[in-house]
């Protein structure tokens, strides 16, 4: 039973983090510089998801420089920079990662 209560509480708090700003923030009250800073939100959040997943291994230590994930990561950056296309970036990263793990 306690697990159900925990799930519901975690769910409510999680939902409030999504609703909170949408409900409370009045755009007309945001200063220009606040709006500018909010423009950086994707660039501030996503790397915190990306970097540990690429540069740390299961034991939370930094991976080797020739780790397949590092190679996939840099190939994806190059292809992303050239193509500006989301699908090609993901596919290029995944295929180069597979080439390294399956062929070498």
């Amino acid at each position, binding site marked *: 039973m*306690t697990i*159900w*209560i*925990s*799930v519901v*509480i*975690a*769910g409510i*708090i*999680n*939902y409030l*983090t*999504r*609703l909170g*700003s*949408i*409900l409370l*923030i*009045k*755009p007309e009250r945001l200063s220009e*510089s606040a*709006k*500018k*800073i*909010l*423009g*950086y*939100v*994707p*660039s*501030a*959040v*996503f*790397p*915190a*998801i*990306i*970097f*540990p*997943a690429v*540069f*740390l291994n299961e034991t*939370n230590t930094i991976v080797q420089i020739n780790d397949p*994930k590092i190679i*996939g*990561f840099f190939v*994806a*950056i190059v292809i*992303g*920079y050239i193509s*500006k*296309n*989301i*699908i090609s*970036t*993901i596919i290029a*990263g*995944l295929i180069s990662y*597979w080439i390294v*793990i399956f062929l070498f």
Partner: protein
Amino acid sequence: MSKKKENLLKGFYDVSPLLLPVVPFGIIFGAIGIELGFGPYITYATSIIIFSGASQIVFFQLLSNGASSIIAITSSSVVSTRHLLYGAVVAQYLSKLSLMWKIFLSYLLTDQAFAVSQEFFKKNSNDEYKHYHLLGAGLTLWIVWQLTTVIGILLGSIVPEELGLSFTIPLTFLALLINYFRKIDHLIVIFLSGLSSILFYNAPLKSYIILSCVISLFIIFLINKFQKKI
């Protein structure tokens, strides 16, 4: 085609490539819930009630490692705090909507839906029905997440681990940043946040994500302020 339907479908199309990691992740999550002994009902309930892959995994892992409910709830909530920032960004475009719309769309505000819809909002800020884009993207993710959780619960880890599909998670988020690769200020934020996330990865209660956001946003705020003065 009506503008509403057009935006709804655009949301669906825009978010589709991002489903690549969501499908295996949902299946793996369902399987992990069963493996850790939470049973099918609790496992599935988290996908409806919490509906956030990262928070759900943290929640289950901590509980199964013997952590107290308080620690599990707090940590999964700290992981969710990034949504406050997402909300602040989309609030600029959704302020005129009714309360019911805000309540419903908030539930659908996931990482991927936020990523594609905020781009759409920026380009179509005058579109009266722009929120249908978030509805389309959010519902797509919701349906896929529910289905794949159930598949994982019923069939177990049918995704071969050798394929290393968990690597598609960082790849997808990386792909979402490609539009910023050419902007030096964004690159600074990306680098600062990434570096902070590695440095603070072991910070208590999984706070490294929100810590990295706050640090990188604060530094770019200082840089912008300093630049204005010179």
